């Protein structure tokens, strides 16, 4: 019989297996990284087989995500990889109950006993090999090192694993806080396990004898351990097969027995003859020829800063520090802006160490010849550096970048900065920043992506980027989040695109992402006339050229594009020292020599949020606290009655449960405090208490509560408030309530300011999803009647029916609803009244106000992550959409205005238009499809009337650093605007 040949082409590796079916023996197996050269790699593997076993007859089959195209075009048969695995499992492990397979980009679970089922991750799921690679890059270690580190972990931090972009936002603060790498590594593996167990198994338990397959699970001990521990499997039940990495290719070879045999030479020539398909869309080359490139280089060289020799120069100097999330930049300039010293480095570990090190170096270089007149710091680490090194000024990043850009073009009207992790763009009007756009979690096609990808190709970033400069047919890779781009790259590779074309395509993707997704420009003309580009990513000529081509005009890229933040800070120091006068407070040479600090992380005990905080104690006894969400965490007193309606609403709504149940004891009803209940709690608490029930509220929202319900989440792209609901339900079930009451409501209360008064589909029908996906819920303990709060008669009838068991009379129900609606009205009136008080107080104190406009459930501190408190600490009074909208006019808008909660947003926007001391910040939950409509409309209303628009996207990740930059930039812009108006503040 002919030999069996299985070829598994995964997203990163090629696996080939040869089986002799007569002897039932695996003759050969191999596992090679293909570095995107799929066809070449397969060919070289096949030729090895040819050398070893000669040219006999083979029955061949291909499997794997990247093998599909190859199979189609070579005419070799194909089998889906999970199916291939299944074939091999049946043969070698017939007693297995389940199998978990992690590949480069896919994660799969196969349930074998108790109902065969095969599951694969969705298109937006992390928790795969690529995710692990990405995280190792972030930690700047190899995957193997990460594995070793993880085995020495003492602590596991919660990390989002749904997608690499989210995980990064969780991990970066851990790195910056100086957490142990061992713990971070273990946390990353735990995140992968959680993702597999909750996201993939979705409530179905992985038990019995479990096989673990695929490369990562074979090579990574730490990952194995995490799986075993989480699933509580002993050695007899957790099986890690010897040939796990090649398992699919073995299955594929077995499957090939049904394929027609052919001589190996013929199979090889079929693969050889596979042509590039026309499926790949390609663009124009970046440069027509070498000459065009040389001109381009010469043009950009003109915007370099001159250097001055630090070893010979005598005189004054100014220091600028940019302590970013991933990199640290330091620059020292002369008063006429020549560079004396510059430094750019990744943050491996504590950025404070790096800067202290650099400052010591600077002091030793300058001797007594050069005096540092002053310094400024910007970036994520601003507060820490300012405290530690007594830097004269701390400024917002956006202001620093603006200052720097002005130096290169005084008429600049648009600045775009693409760094490793984020994209920042600002429009400049009347020599002040007019609007700011930052990338969001899901559109972060940033520089680090190219870097990760270059690494995956086995190249350094410069080499990889240069390849793209002269690509003939750059591929179109789409413009969205990096995870999606990753699979687009894979697809292009599958279609046979060259590395050059992919490199150029990536550059163009990053540019398109920035222009169309972050800036949301409809046409390139919107950007402006005088554009300055900066950030490390623009040092890449291919990205720069793509940008110029896309917008059809030349831009300025300073030679110090990567140091602009630090340069701007130095300029700021220069300008403002002159204004302030006096000597610099900067730590002296001697102080630096003595400098020491100790850092420890702990939980703040200021309130129930129990924020993770980091306390740094300096050698001289001063303390610096970070990670806190409010002043309390920083050891400061919080005013007892802050000008913060969010805090008020959160407390007030819970008071709607009085604990008095009219002397009857009809039973215990659980109300989950999330989504619609954040507004209707008064109604239902009043109703049930009046009807003689004890009302029990679900546990307060927290990350832990989310994890508690995570295994019942059916769709992980739903918004965080919805996903949190699962935890609330679990907590109520654990509290032993008689039943949970959570109505379905297509319609919300009609507030007569929109065409219709719908709830959004998620708010309206989430009970259906909860019930369908949580085994503990049934008809008895989960009541989800369909109600319309506007139609009293039908409400009474429905409630009577649904609460039949409790034999409520119509009269009791009527009375209950009366009480409920009374409490609802009272609650709303109190919110409005408190809003009025805040406005009055703020005006008396001359404070600026912010309408933090979102949804009722955004008052949940776990959902808003304390943004209200942050605003308070920046000196703003905080209002909400529901305490102001009734004070505004009714509005007519361009979009179909048909949701109760969303209609309030438009009126809240109208409310701020004529108030110079009130601005609006819109809170948007990630995944909220309806806000895709409201945000553009609210922005248009505000911007057409000269108001600032600021949007903050929130999700399960808690990274206030970015939010703070955005809010402080907004603050700077508001101050600028008000200064222009002559400081007039009136109502």
């Amino acid at each position: 019989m002919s030999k069996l040949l299985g070829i598994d082409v995964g997203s990163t590796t090629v696996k080939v297996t040869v089986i002799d079916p007569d002897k039932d023996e695996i003759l050969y197996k191999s596992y090679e990284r293909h570095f995107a050269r799929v066809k070449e790699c397969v060919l070289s593997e096949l030729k090895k087989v040819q050398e070893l076993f000669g040219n006999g007859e083979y029955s061949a089959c291909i499997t794997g995500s990247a093998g599909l195209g190859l199979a189609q075009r070579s005419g070799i048969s194909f089998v889906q990889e999970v199916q291939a695995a299944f074939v091999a499992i049946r043969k070698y492990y017939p007693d297995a109950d389940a199998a978990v397979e992690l590949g480069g980009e896919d994660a799969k679970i196969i349930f074998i006993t108790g109902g065969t089922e095969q599951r694969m991750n969705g298109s937006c799921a992390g928790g795969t090999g690529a995710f692990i690679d990405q995280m190792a890059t972030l930690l700047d270690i190899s995957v193997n090192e990460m594995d070793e580190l993880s085995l020495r972990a003492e602590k596991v931090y919660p990390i989002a694993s749904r997608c690499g972009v989210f995980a990064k936002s969780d991990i970066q603060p851990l790195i910056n806080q100086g957490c142990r790498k061992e713990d971070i590594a273990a946390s990353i593996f735990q995140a992968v396990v959680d993702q597999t167990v909750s996201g993939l198994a979705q409530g179905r338990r992985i038990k019995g004898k479990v096989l673990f397959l695929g490369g990562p699970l074979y090579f990574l001990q730490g990952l194995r351990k995490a799986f075993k521990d989480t699933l509580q499997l002993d050695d007899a039940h957790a099986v890690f097969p010897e040939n796990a990495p090649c398992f699919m290719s073995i299955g594929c070879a077995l499957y090939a027995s049904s394929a027609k045999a052919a001589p190996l030479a013929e199979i090889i020539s079929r693969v050889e003859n596979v042509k590039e398909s026309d499926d790949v869309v390609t663009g124009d080359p970046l440069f027509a020829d070498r000459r065009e490139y040389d001109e381009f280089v010469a043009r950009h060289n003109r915007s370099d800063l001159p250097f001055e020799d630090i070893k010979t120069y005598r005189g004054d100097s100014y220091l600028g520090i940019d302590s970013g999330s991933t990199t640290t930049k330091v620059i020292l300039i002369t008063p006429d802006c020549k560079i004396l010293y510059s430094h750019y480095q990744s943050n491996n570990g504590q950025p404070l160490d790096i800067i202290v090190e650099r400052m010591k170096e600077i002091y030793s270089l300058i001797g007594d010849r050069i005096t540092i007149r002053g310094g400024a710091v910007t970036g994520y680490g601003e507060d820490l550096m300012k405290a530690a090194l007594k830097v004269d000024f701390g400024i917002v990043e956006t202001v620093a970048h603006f200052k720097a850009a002005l130096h290169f073009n005084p008429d600049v009207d648009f600045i775009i900065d693409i760094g490793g992790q984020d994209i920042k763009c600002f429009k400049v009007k009347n020599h002040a920043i007019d609007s700011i756009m930052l990338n969001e979690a899901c559109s972060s096609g940033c520089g680090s992506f190219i870097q990760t990808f270059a690494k995956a190709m086995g190249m350094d970033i410069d080499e990889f980027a240069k390849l793209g400069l002269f690509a003939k047919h750059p591929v179109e890779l789409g413009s969205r989040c990096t995870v999606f781009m990753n699979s687009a790259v894979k697809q292009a590779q599958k279609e046979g695109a060259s590395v050059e074309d992919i490199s150029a395509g990536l550059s163009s993707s990053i540019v398109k992402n920035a222009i169309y997704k972050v800036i949301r420009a409809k046409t390139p003309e919107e950007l402006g006339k005088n554009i300055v580009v900066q950030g490390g990513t623009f040092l890449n000529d291919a990205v720069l050229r793509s940008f110029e081509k896309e917008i059809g005009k030349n831009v300025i890229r300073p030679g110090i594009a990567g140091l602009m933040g630090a340069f701007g800070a130095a300029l700021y120091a220069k300008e403002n020292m002159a204004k302030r006068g006096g000597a610099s407070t900067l730590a002296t040479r001697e102080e630096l020599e003595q400098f020491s600090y100790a850092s420890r992380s702990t939980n703040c005990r200021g309130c129930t949020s129990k924020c993770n905080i980091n306390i740094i104690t300096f050698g001289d006894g001063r303390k610096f606290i970070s990670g806190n969400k409010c002043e309390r965490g920083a050891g400061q007193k919080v005013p007892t009655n802050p000008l913060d309606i969010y805090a008020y609403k959160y407390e007030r709504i819970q008071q709607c449960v009085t604990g008095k149940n009219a002397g009857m004891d009809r039973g215990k009803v659980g109300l989950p405090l999330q989504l619609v209940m954040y507004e209707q709690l008064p109604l239902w608490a009043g109703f049930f208490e009046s009807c003689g029930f004890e009302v029990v509220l679900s546990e307060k929202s927290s990350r832990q509560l989310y994890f508690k319900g995570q295994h019942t989440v059916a769709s992980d792209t739903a918004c965080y408030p919805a996903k949190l609901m699962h935890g609330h339900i679990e907590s109520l079930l654990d509290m032993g309530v008689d039943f949970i009451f959570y109505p379905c409501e297509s319609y919300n209360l009609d507030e007569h300011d929109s065409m219709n008064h719908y709830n959004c589909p998620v708010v309206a029908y989430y009970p259906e999803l909860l019930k369908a996906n949580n085994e503990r819920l049934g008809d008895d303990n989960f009541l989800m009647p369909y109600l319309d709060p506007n139609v009293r008669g039908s409400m009474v009838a429905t409630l009577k029916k649904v609460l039949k068991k409790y034999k409520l009379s119509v009269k009791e129900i009527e009375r209950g609803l009366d009480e409920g609606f009374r409490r609802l009205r009272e609650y709303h009136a109190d919110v409005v009244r408190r809003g009025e008080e805040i406005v009055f107080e703020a005006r008396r104190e001359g404070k600026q106000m912010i309408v933090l406009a979102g949804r009722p459930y955004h008052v949940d501190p776990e959902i808003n992550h304390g943004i209200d408190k942050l605003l308070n600490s920046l000196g703003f009074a905080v209002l909400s959409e529901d305490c102001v909208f009734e004070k505004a006019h009714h509005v007519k808008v361009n979009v179909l205005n048909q949701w109760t909660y969303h209609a309030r947003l438009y009126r809240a926007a109208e409310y701020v238009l004529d108030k110079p001391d009130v601005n609006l910040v819109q809170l948007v939950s990630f995944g909220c499809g309806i806000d895709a409509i409201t945000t553009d409309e609210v922005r248009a209303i505000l911007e057409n009337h000269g108001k600032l628009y600021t949007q903050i996207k929130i999700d399960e990740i808690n990274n206030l650093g970015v939010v703070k930059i955005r809010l402080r930039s907004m603050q700077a812009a508001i101050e600028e605007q008000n200064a222009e108006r002559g400081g007039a503040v009136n109502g």
Partner: protein
Amino acid sequence: MAENQEEKKIPGGCAVGCGAGEPVDFTDEYPTFRPEMKETHTILIPDMLPYHFEIIKYILAQEGYKIEVLHNDSRAVIDEGLKHVHNDTCFPALCVIGQYIDALKSGKYDVDRTAVLISQTGGGCRASNYLPLIRKALKAEFPQVPVLSVNFSGLEKGNGIPMTLPLLLKIAYGIFYGDNIMTLYNQTLPYETRAGSAEEARQACLDMVYRAYDQKKYKKYKDLTRRMLAIFKAVPRSGEEKVKVGVVGEIYVKYSPLGNSHLEDFLHAEGCETVIPGLMDFVLYCVVNTINDRKLYKRNSALQALVYRIVYRFLYGIQKQIIRLFQEDGTFEPLHDFEHLRRCADKVINQGVKMGEGWLIPAEMAALAETGTDNIVCAQPFGCLPNHIAGKGVVRTLKNMYRDENIVPVDYDPSATRVNQENRIKLMLATARENLQKKQREKARKED
């Protein structure tokens, strides 16, 4: 515009309760479709329902409208969509807008004499906002192009094709005929022994339908259905058994090849028979939702509910007759009976879930399982709100109810790659083929 608004506004801060009074108008100016434009303008419609839109186009042409169904399908379409639509807007909006802008830019149309058309249901999901989104997208480059609305909810009054009762009737019949042709074609294509013969039959049926409209005989649905059955019956078919795959989901990505990366072609190439529930079910679903609102919440007036009930009885009556004709003939599987769909829905989800495609999706999945199609692609745009609940949310329930139910939810998105989507569908197909073989073995054993 801006100046106008300033005038309307009451200057200075305002006290409590100024919510009354004239609303402040933030709307931009946009062209509407005036009746005389019927003579001058070409109306573009998106490539959504390949089987139905050709017929509807014919009907509207009879009324004097110049209609063109777009078929542009290049990457440029998606790129234009990406440029003009918010990142988080659903994929169908992006496809439709991309297709319009790409077409308007193509130079094929006189942009001063072109309008575009979109339907609105007025439901609680985002889809009814496509119209304003299109308007916003066109504003920068094609401000002169009117956007027409087709809806039955009283939206956009005076800006659309006036829906008279006779016209509505014509369209309703057209939908039945489109459904018939679609289902017959899908049951013939995988089995045709001569390539192209199913397509010829489809064309013959379409021509027959057009003639019926020409001769004002379009109401003779029994006669037309019988003749369609005859035409397709005449196509020689092989008797082998193939894997049947049902396609359900959000209405645009369910039907539109641009939206679902040519899902039907892919499934045919994989040797499957596709089972696509009819468009009339969606129409009936919308009608029933109004009746349900009355039942659940006493919302709509009794009169309104009565009117909808009459409409429902009329349409359902025709559907039942058509099903009967299919059954009498016995060659082809008829489309679902809508009352059966409703009963199926009740087993899985409440009929109160009425946003987007709502309860219709679980109903179709259950009905498919009960009529021998266990394998299902549930197509949805990435992040589709109603589909969190009515799509992915019900998979677990369905799997518990039907042992062999083999569902794959697929997200469609401008950047989700075909490889990714196809690989998941292939996994579903691998299971499907195995189940089919198992069934065939069991059947053979029984026959022995």
